[in-house]
């Protein structure tokens, strides 16, 4: 036994107070002379003894109250060895229903084994059925009835998601801590190697968990799949675009495959390729002209194998006109837009065309028809322009603000409201964050020199994605409402830097343009489980909408008005309408890691089975099961009881005093 807060034991000294008072009171009772005691009877002494006993009880309760309080605050604990054997056992029947379980009869085999396990459970056993892919889904509560368990097993269907053993082990650890029961886990699946977490330690289960692994399927079966398709998500011209696909085989011998390219269900081209053993081959289709609109593309291989789901690969492509960008210049100098407009025009694949206008015309423009707006050193916007640009951004628009001397003189950056001041003298560009979507694919701003720059003070929540060599922010990424804001610390016209003269200028203009136009998050295809953003903040009142591969609305009314994102869990095409009104056609394909059906070797499975408590020595297990059990709550309850008794005895004592 020990104390977590031993200093509170000093409170025991307070117990001396009632003791002192009691003794003081005892000594105060000095003998009182009386003429004769012949009329007083001896029996009074016994009542006196009773009274003294009551006073001693009162003293005892007072002492107990103070001592218990002192001990309770000292927070005593005892080493408590949890009796694992004394815990109830919860049988967890976990069934892998990831995409790879579609192979052959694996799913049926796994369910049959799960049924057999349920039937073999001792009568009255507590059991629970969970389904495992990249998530772990409890299909039942802990149940004693077999019917509910059998029904849950019957309802398990293979999903299009990849399995994650790391997530499964994490959930088991949580259950181990929270249920207070001994977990007897039976995991049934194909034990794919690709489902292993990066660190083996992530597979450790809790100290009260025993794990048995049951593998369905035998060996490492061959599988071919369309591993990837390279296709543009958007095209802005009638120019033909080439589409390529990679056909891969795992544990396969060399085989001939017929590869077809389909657009909106119509086969555009078919090729015959030979896929080498355990290899992959790239298939290049003839360039195609994409008609206007969003189209559903597919690359398919035939003949199908036992895992047909990965024999086709879906992608989307959309043809539209180039989108316009409004470049607003101040001070009546249209030449400020020259570099920016030329840089954008030099990259026709960007799909963006720059228009120029005076800053004062901003309020008169219909900004919603522009992909984004560029404010080149705007200074302080007039109220109407400021209101127009702010409204445009909050509604889902985007703005690139180049803060030069005029803006620094105004003291704050328009639209964003960030404080800005004149920076120092000559500086060169420093580091950039290439993980930021706005700069993905951009080249380093090597040797770019700024003769003057604006010293930006980004507000909380802003992200600095490029800095000057002195550490001052060079490019800041922010949001306002549903819109995006980029703030550059110098004008884009080269008046205060030699940036436009460097090779990194064009990629910067194009990539930031794509980011601001919202095209960076529109790939031609995504893997299952990828979330799609529906809105940036919950304050937006406009409803979003998602129509799944089956043509069904995936969001109910509440989700449509509040959900920030939606997980694309099924293989197929999703039609997404964001809260800003933007529409997307998203092609979703099963994670191709699932196509590699190679199973974990037996020794790895044995190692997993004994990871954590199973692999620990008995002494280690005892050590893990020994915990500090505090009992300050018990002491407080006892103190409460002592306080009640003290009140009862004290009131009687005081009552006698009043009567006297």
């Amino acid at each position, binding site marked *: 036994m020990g104390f977590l807060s031993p200093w509170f034991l000093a409170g025991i000294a307070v117990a001396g107070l009632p003791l002192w008072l009691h003794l003081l009171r005892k000594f105060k009772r000095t*003998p*009182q*002379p*009386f003429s*004769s*005691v012949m009329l*007083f009877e001896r029996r009074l002494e016994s009542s006196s003894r009773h009274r003294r006993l009551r006073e001693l009880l009162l003293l005892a309760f007072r002492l107990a109250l103070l001592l218990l309080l002192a001990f309770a605050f000292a927070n005593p604990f005892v080493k408590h060895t949890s009796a694992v054997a004394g815990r109830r056992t919860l049988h967890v029947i976990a069934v892998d229903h990831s995409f790879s379980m579609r192979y052959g009869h694996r799913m049926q085999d796994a369910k049959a084994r799960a049924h057999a396990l349920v039937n073999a459970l001792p009568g009255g056993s507590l059991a629970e059925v969970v389904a495992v892919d990249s998530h772990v889904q409890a299909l039942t509560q802990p149940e004693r009835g077999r019917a509910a368990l059998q029904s849950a097993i019957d309802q398990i269907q293979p999903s299009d998601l990849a399995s994650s053993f790391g997530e499964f082990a994490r959930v088991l650890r949580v259950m181990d801590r929270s249920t207070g029961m001994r977990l007897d886990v039976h995991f049934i699946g194909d034990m794919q190697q690709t489902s292993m977490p990066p660190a083996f330690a992530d597979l450790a289960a809790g100290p009260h968990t025993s794990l048995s692994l049951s593998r369905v399927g035998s060996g490492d079966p061959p599988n071919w799949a369309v591993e990837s398709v390279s296709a543009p998500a958007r095209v802005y011209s009638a120019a033909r675009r080439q589409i390529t696909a990679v056909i891969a085989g795992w544990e396969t011998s060399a085989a001939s495959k017929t590869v077809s390219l389909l657009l909106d269900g119509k086969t555009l081209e078919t090729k015959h390729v030979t896929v080498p053993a355990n290899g992959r081959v790239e298939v290049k289709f003839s360039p195609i002209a994409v008609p206007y609109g969003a189209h559903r593309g597919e690359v398919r291989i035939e003949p199908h194998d036992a895992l047909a789901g990965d024999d086709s690969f879906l992608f989307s492509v959309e043809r539209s006109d180039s989108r316009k960008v409004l470049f607003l210049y101040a001070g009546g100098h249209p030449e400020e837009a020259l570099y920016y407009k030329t840089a954008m025009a030099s990259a026709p694949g960007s799909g963006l065309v720059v228009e120029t206008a005076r800053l004062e015309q901003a309020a008169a423009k219909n900004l919603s028809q522009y992909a984004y707006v560029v404010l080149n050193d705007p200074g302080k916007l007039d109220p109407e322009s400021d209101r127009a640009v702010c409204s445009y951004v909050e509604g889902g628009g985007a703005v690139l603000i180049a803060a030069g001397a005029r803006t620094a003189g105004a003291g704050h950056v328009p639209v964003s409201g960030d404080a800005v001041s004149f920076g120092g003298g000559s500086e060169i560009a420093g580091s950039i964050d290439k993980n930021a979507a706005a700069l993905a694919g951009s080249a380093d701003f090597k040797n770019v020199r700024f003769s003057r720059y604006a010293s930006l003070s980004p507000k909380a929540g802003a992200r600095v994605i490029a800095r000057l060599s002195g550490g001052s922010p060079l490019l800041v990424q922010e949001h306002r409402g549903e819109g995006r804001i980029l703030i550059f610390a110098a004008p884009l016209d080269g008046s205060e830097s030699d940036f436009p003269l460097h090779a990194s200028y064009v990629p910067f203009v194009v990539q930031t343009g794509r980011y601001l136009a919202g095209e960076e998050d529109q790939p031609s295809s995504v893997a299952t489980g990828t979330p799609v953003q529906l809105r940036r903040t919950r304050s937006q009142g406009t409803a979003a909408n998602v129509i799944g591969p089956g043509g069904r609305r995936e969001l109910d009314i509440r989700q449509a008005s509040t959900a920030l994102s939606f997980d694309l869990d099924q293989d197929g095409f999703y039609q997404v309408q964001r809260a800003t009104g933007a529409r997307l056609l998203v092609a979703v394909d099963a994670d191709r890691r699932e196509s590699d059906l190679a199973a974990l070797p037996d020794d790895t499975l044995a190692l997993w089975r004994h990871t954590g408590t199973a692999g620990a020595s008995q002494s280690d297990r005892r050590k893990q099961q020994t915990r500090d059990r505090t009992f300050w709550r018990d002491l407080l309850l006892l103190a409460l009881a002592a306080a009640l008794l003290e009140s009862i005895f004290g009131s009687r004592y005081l009552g006698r*005093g009043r*009567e006297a």
Partner: protein
Amino acid sequence: MPVELTNRFVDPAVLAGMSSLDLVAKIVVDGFISGLHRSPDFGFSQEFAEYRAYTPGDDLRHVDWNVYARTEKAYLKRYRGETNTALMVLLDASASMGFASGAVSKFDYARFLAASLVYLAHLQRDSAGLIVFHDEVQNFVRPSARQGQLMRLLHGIEAAVLGKRTDFKRPFFELQQFLKRRGITVVISDFFDDPGKIVDTVIPLRFRGNELILFQVLDPAELDFHLAEPAVLVDMETGEAVETSPSYAREEYPGKIRAHVSDLHSRAESAGIDHFLLPTNRALDEAMREYFTIRQGRL
């Protein structure tokens, strides 16, 4: 003493503040006499008849000049026969008599009473004697009516000091040796003893033709005992300690003390002995007058 003279009865606490017993006795007896016109027949002597106010033509030899000296009023002392009664005062000086809850202890009160009685006897020209006792005789003044007897008695009373325990047997045995002729014996005590034992001890005096009077002096606190909290009481005579509680003092003790006094009274009455209770907070002259009124009525 304007205050005392204007008051009908004298507070014992006022008497306790006086330095000499003769003054106390005179004040008490004068106060007692001042009510005489309403009760003409008072006194111990069997032959005493009355005091009567002087009227022109009365024989000046019968004027009580002492009373005249005190009151400036002439009274005639009238007798029915010869005065040969001896008054014997037995004063209890045991330790329990020292108990006092106020300004006057039982012993003080008893001394005032004793002084007043011998003074009254002196006025009647009766012989008077004194025995001060506790468990033995502390002082003895032989009864006499000679000149200077009053001063001897008062000195004996004033010199009495508290002793130890009360024991009636020994002083009464010795008293029987001295009392050769009939007279009046007054016992002043708190009588904290078994009433039967007390009466059995004193009753032999009654058989010799003596008249016996028991003045029981008790403190008000002994009659109406209160305790604020449990206490340990120590007997002033025996040193015995007894714990008692407020509830006992409130509920049981009053009945016991009343029973004790009543028992003594009834036993004394049945033995032809006068018994009179005197709480120390009661005016002594008033108490004496009441006693003598009762006594006169009984006679």
